[in-house]
C-alpha cells in the first residue's frame, strides 16, 4: 500500500508538554466490526498466508 502523504503541517509541540520517552497514551480504539473479507485477489492471498501461518507483516516480508 502506498504511503499516505499529508501536506498540512503537524502542530508545534505545546510549551511544557511532557510524556514518558516522548509518548503519552491517552485512549483506545473503538470496538471493531467483524466482517467477511472476500477470498479474492493477490492481496487477500497474502493476508490468508499471514493468517494461516500466524505471521506478522514484517515476518512475512523476510
Amino acid at each position, binding site marked *: 500500500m502506498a504511503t499516505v502523504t*499529508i501536506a498540512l503541517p503537524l502542530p508545534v509541540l505545546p510549551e511544557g508538554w511532557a510524556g514518558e520517552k516522548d*509518548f503519552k497514551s491517552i485512549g483506545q480504539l473503538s470496538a471493531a466490526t467483524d466482517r467477511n473479507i472476500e477470498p479474492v485477489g493477490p*492481496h487477500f492471498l497474502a493476508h490468508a498466508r499471514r493468517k494461516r501461518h500466524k505471521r506478522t507483516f514484517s515476518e512475512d516480508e523476510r
Partner: protein
Amino acid sequence: MSAESDPAQRVAIGISFGNSYSSIAYTSGEGKAEVIANEDGDRQIPSILSYVEGEELHGSQAKTQLVRNAKNTVTTFRDFLGQDFKSIDPTPCHQSAHPVPSESTVAFKVRDTEAEEESTVTVSEITTRHLKRLRQSASDYLGKDVNAAVITVPTNFSDAQKDALNKAAKEAGIEVLQFISEPVAAVLAYDARPGAQLADKIIVVADLGGTRSDIAVVASRGGIYSVLATIHDYEVSGIQLDQALMDHFAKEFLKKNKSAGDPRENDRSLAKLKLESEAVKKALSIGTTANFSVESLADGVDFTASINRTRYDLLASKHIAAFVRLVTHAVEKAQLDPLDITEIIVAGGNSHTPKVASAVANAFPETTTVLAPSTSPTAINPSELSVRGAAIQASLIQEFDLEDIEQSSHPMVTVTPHLSHAVGVLCISGEESSGIFHTIVDAETPLPVRRTAIISTPREGGDVLIKLVEGLRHIKVTKPEPKPKKEKSEDDDEDDSDEDESEEEEELREKTWKIGNVLSEAAVKGVKKGGKVEVQINITADLNVNAIFREVGGKGGVRGLLSGPKVTQNGSA
C-alpha cells in the same frame, strides 16, 4: 488423486455464467485477461440450448430457434439450480421451454433426441451441457484441454445453488477451483489492469443484467475487499427494457397496419418482436438511431421502423429511474452517504446504454467516478467484467491444492475485524476543536493493518506534536441563504416548478470529520527546517496499536504502544 485435481495438470479459465449470457476468459502468460470468442465469434454467448432433430444448438444459434422451435429451446435457467420448483419464478421462460418440477429440482421437457417423445432434462443436466460447450470452445481456442475454472455467481447464490453448480460443472469435466462473487470479480478486473494504482476506495458495483439487478457496496482497502451491503431485484431488468421497446414497436406496427393482429398476441410474432427489440436496444448503445426490421412480423406483414436514442431513453426512463433508486438504496443500506462513494462500476450488459450510466452519475456528486463505456473512455466492457475477474483469480490460484483454496476461503480466515472509524493525525493544531483531521487508516479497513504516513512540519521545523485520533466521518449540510422573494405574476410562479434544478440554490453537502477517541500524543523534537515526519502505524486484530514516529532520515524515533479495549472472553471458564 485423480489427474484433474493435480494442480500441475490444470488448465484453468474464468467463466461467467449468467441467466442471459455466459463468457469464458483466460489469463495469458503476461497476466492479461483475454475474453475468448466461441466458434460463432461471440464473447457474450447466450446461455441457451436448443434441440433440433436430436442435434444440440448452443448460444446465438440456439437463440434464433426461439422463433420456430421455442418449446425445445431452454433459456434463463441458472438461477433455478439447487432450488425446488416452488421457489422459482418461471416468468422469464414463458416464451421458451417451460420449467417443470422433477423430484426435488427443476427440469425442462424437451425433444432432445430424434425420437418423438420428450425427455425430462434437469436444470443440472442442462447446465452441464451448457458448460461442456463453453469448455469445448475454450479448449479449441487454447489448443489445450480445459479442466478447471473459477466461476462467478451473484452474492446471494445459496450454498445449495453453489453445490448444484459445482456438481454440474464436474459432470462437464470442469473442476471448480472457486466460486467468486460477480461484483468482487468486477472490482478485481479493474484492479488487475496494468498500471492500476492501489487505493482505498468505496466502490459500488451496479449490475443491470438480463433478468435481475444486483447492487453491491464494496470497501477496497489495500487491495482487500469487503462487501458492506447488497441489494437484489428481479423486477428491474433488461427484460423490462426490451419490453418497453416491444410495446413501442407493436403499437407503431398496429398504427400502420390497422387490419393486422397484435404481434404480442402470437407466439412466433412475439419471439421475433423480442429478438429484434433487444438488437435495437444494443444498437442504440453505440448509435443515436437504430432500425427495427422484421419480415412477416404478424399476419405476413413485414415491418420496419426507426427509433432514436432520445425516444428510447424516454421509454426506458421509468426502469432506469428504478435502477438508480436501487443504487442509492444500497448506499443507504451500507450506512454511507453518496459522498463516501469513490467509484461506481456500472456492470451488466445494459450498462452499455448511455442513459443508464448518466442517470446513475446524476444521482451522485461529481467526486464519484462512474465507470461505464459512455462516461469513461478507459472503462472495461461491462459485459466482460465478471469473466475477466474470474480469469485473473483462476491464474492466481491454479497452482494451489483445492484443499488450500478451501481453507483460505474458510470463515476462520475470512471473518476479520474491521476498523469502525478512521485513524489519523491532527494537523495545524493539536486542539480537537481546531485541528484538522487527516486519515492514515480508513474506516472499514480489515485488521491487522500496517500503514505509513509522511507528514509535513511547520516552516521552521522544531518540536512537533503528533496526536493520533479517531476521525468520525460527518456530512456537513449548509442550507442556502433564503433568497428574498421576487415579485412575480401568478403565471410565472407556475413555470417555476419545471425550472432546471441547477438554477435553484441547492444545499451544500460536504464530507468533514468529527474527532472521536483520542488515542495518543507523541513528540518528535528538533525537526530540521523543511523536515518531514514519518508515522508508521500497526493495528493488530485485537486493536492494539503499535506506532513509530520519527523524522524522515533522522535517527531513532519515538515508539508508542496502545492496548486495545479489554475483551471479555467467552467460554473461558
